[in-house]
């Protein structure tokens, strides 16, 4: 392993690694435009210039392999001079749209100019005009004048999405990024080119002009769009409701995780957050009329205490069915198991029919639920246990007297009239969920619950990796986290649970469900933790 010196510090760096990588392990950041760790090396932007001793000319850090005894200076006067010259060229034809450019504030052209810029420009000539605001696809807008021709987007469509839409056409100062005529940038991963474009040449049509980026807050979480569980950052605004029609979430960006999604995410996950701010259930409703949480919890537990008692008229026991959801967190599914299955002897399932979606062998999984594996581990999707259709059928046959549905819309299983009939025949019909739907409309109690960004918890992805979802902001309006509602009901039922938070519930879960043994929130951390071997994943694999 070659040993080299970077800015006076020694480091061993593996054979074949480059100076930019070695510097990064030392925590030294070398500016870059064309270099991206997830793409092949192009070495065309020249901003990463460094001084290597005994070498008369500046070298590019991104494509200079490390060598034994190499002495590198990343911020010598000479290197800075070199970068200043590179920036002068890059800006020669740059429109300087910053005041109206979406990238402003997170633009590497701005950032590096602050460090190395000339500040007193010498360019007096006319700039070359190119096309602006070209919608290259359903999600991405291209501004050819702002492009610095780093070719990251071209390499992305060649190497990662493998769709090859982008090219760099013409040469010299007329060179421009574009699509082959008649094509569109319409692949399942197109949004990623916006993230990797170091300047404002590729911007997000969905986010465009909605907010300046410095107003955004960011929270780490996990995408709930499918069983892959890509790590993401959610960017939101709480104190400027005029920016986005009051919607809190403005955009979602992938968060690096070497084991799950690397730097990428799919468009479906990236743009599928609308439901968190629109069409939400906001108030507790009883038979369609407003009610309070206190009334709901009291009323529901009163009925639940009767479960298992003998119905004097019919001579049979009162029975409860629960349709849980693989959209819920492990903590909530565990509570559902403890309360409904173990304490009340209810028929419980988390197998809800969902048409398999599109999938590929990169990120997108056909299973569009984020926590199918968690539900399986906790034992709520047993092949021997009933599924949602069976529970609904039993209810319609009059075998069940009470039903609690978590989030699922029963009209996907039965006709509207059947749903009405079911609602009339039940003694207790609770719907708890984030968004309004016909099932909520027919239920006796409709409880507004928190979306996944509004609560703490964990999901298990398709590869058996436990990942934490963080709470970005508090639940909307009157809605409450499912775990909080369930804990309150458990308290009323005197089940003697001592847990007060998702973290404490998780500790109990880790003690009770073997594959989770030894895990804590701290160990799961920001990047998740693997819980099972591949063999055990296969064992609980859900079809």
């Amino acid at each position, binding site marked *: 392993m070659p040993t080299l010196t970077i800015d006076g510090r020694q480091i061993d760096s593996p054979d074949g690694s480059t100076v930019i990588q070695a510097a990064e392990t030392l925590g030294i950041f070398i500016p870059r435009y064309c270099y991206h760790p997830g793409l092949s090396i192009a070495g065309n932007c020249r901003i990463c210039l460094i001084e290597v001793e005994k070498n008369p000319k500046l070298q590019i850090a991104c494509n200079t392999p490390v060598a034994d005894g190499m002495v590198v200076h990343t911020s010598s006067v000479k290197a800075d001079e070199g970068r200043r010259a590179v920036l002068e060229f890059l800006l020669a034809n740059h429109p300087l749209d910053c005041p109206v450019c979406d990238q402003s504030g997170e633009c590497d052209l701005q950032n590096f100019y602050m460090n190395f810029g000339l500040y007193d420009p010498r360019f007096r000539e006319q700039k070359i005009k190119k096309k602006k605001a070209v919608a290259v696809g359903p999600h991405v807008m291209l501004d050819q004048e702002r492009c610095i021709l780093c070719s990251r987007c071209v390499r992305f469509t060649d190497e990662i999405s493998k769709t090859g839409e982008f090219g760099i056409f013409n040469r010299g100062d007329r060179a421009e990024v574009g699509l082959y005529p008649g094509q*569109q940038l319409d692949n399942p991963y197109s949004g990623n080119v916006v993230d990797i474009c170091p300047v404002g040449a590729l911007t997000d049509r969905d986010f465009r002009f*909605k907010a300046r980026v410095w107003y955004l807050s960011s929270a780490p979480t996990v995408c709930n769009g499918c069983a892959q569980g890509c790590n993401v950052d959610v960017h939101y605004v709480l104190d400027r409701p005029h920016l*986005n029609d009051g919607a809190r979430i403005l955009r979602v960006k992938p968060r690096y995780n070497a084991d799950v999604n690397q730097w990428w995410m799919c468009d479906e996950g990236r743009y599928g957050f609308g439901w968190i701010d629109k069409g939400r259930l906001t108030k507790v409703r009883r038979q369609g009329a407003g009610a309070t949480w206190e009334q709901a919890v009291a009323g529901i537990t009163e009925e639940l205490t009767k479960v298992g008692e003998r119905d004097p008229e019919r001579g049979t026991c009162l029975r409860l069915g629960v349709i849980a959801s693989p959209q819920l967190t492990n903590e909530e599914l565990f509570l559902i198991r403890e309360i409904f299955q173990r304490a009340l002897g209810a028929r419980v399932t988390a197998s809800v029919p969902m048409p398999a979606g599109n999938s590929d062998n990169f990120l997108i999984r056909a299973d569009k639920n984020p926590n199918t594996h968690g539900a399986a581990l906790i034992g709520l999707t047993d092949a021997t246990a009933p599924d949602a259709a069976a529970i609904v059928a039993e209810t319609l046959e009059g075998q069940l007297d009470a039903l609690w549905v978590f989030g699922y819309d029963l009209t996907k299983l039965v006709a509207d009239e059947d749903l009405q009939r079911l609602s009339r025949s039940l003694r207790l019909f609770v719907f708890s969920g984030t968004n309004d739907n016909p099932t909520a409309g027919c239920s006796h109690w409709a409880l507004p619950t928190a979306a996944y960004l509004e609560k703490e918890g964990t999901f298990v992805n398709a590869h058996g990796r436990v990942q934490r979802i963080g709470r970005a902001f508090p639940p909307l309006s009157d809605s409450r986290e499912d775990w909080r509602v369930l804990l309150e009901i458990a308290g009323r039922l005197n089940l003697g649970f001592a847990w007060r938070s998702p973290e404490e519930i998780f500790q109990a879960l880790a003690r009770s469900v073997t594959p989770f043994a030894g895990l804590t929130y701290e160990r799961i951390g920001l990047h998740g933790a693997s819980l099972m071997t591949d063999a055990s994943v296969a064992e609980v694999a859900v079809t």
Partner: protein
Amino acid sequence: MSFHPKMAYDATFQKSARPLEDEGPAFVYTPANRARFDEIVRRYPPDRRRSAVLPALYLAQQQQGYITANAIRHVAGLVGITRAEVEDVVSFYTMFYTKPVGTFVLQVCRTLSCALNGAERVTEELSAKIGIPPGQTDPSGTFTLLEVECLGACDRAPVVMVNDAWHENVKPGDAARLVDDLRSRGEAALSGCHHVIEQKR
């Protein structure tokens, strides 16, 4: 309400703004050219097959005189790269033509050495003699006049490249005669010193 209008998301809004000028007639290599292409591709290691795009495009240009969108499609399919990648190459190099050109393509170098030796005057004279501005083909289809960057023969500036042959030391005042020569004697009119080196005459 948001201050900002919603973007239209209709399909018409998403078309590329740079249509190729000519779809052209249907294009496939002639059997002979196809055989030459196969022979060329064999010279490249399989993982460098994409590098064959340059000779493949030359073949297409030889066959049809210029490169059309259909030719790009054909070449992309054969080489195994995207059409965008082929257009990258076509639009980068000045020796690929995307419009029909004349029998003689006159490329006047306009880079430093030639410029200092009067290349601009040469262009003006040629332009006046043929009766077309640079970048165009005369109505008879005999001459196309182009301005290009350094042709690599700076010591014999100014240089005019006629088809594949240099024509050196074309002093201002001489240029018109070159056109007459080409008209009367065709290729034989070329006098570049590479003819001597390569014993073409």
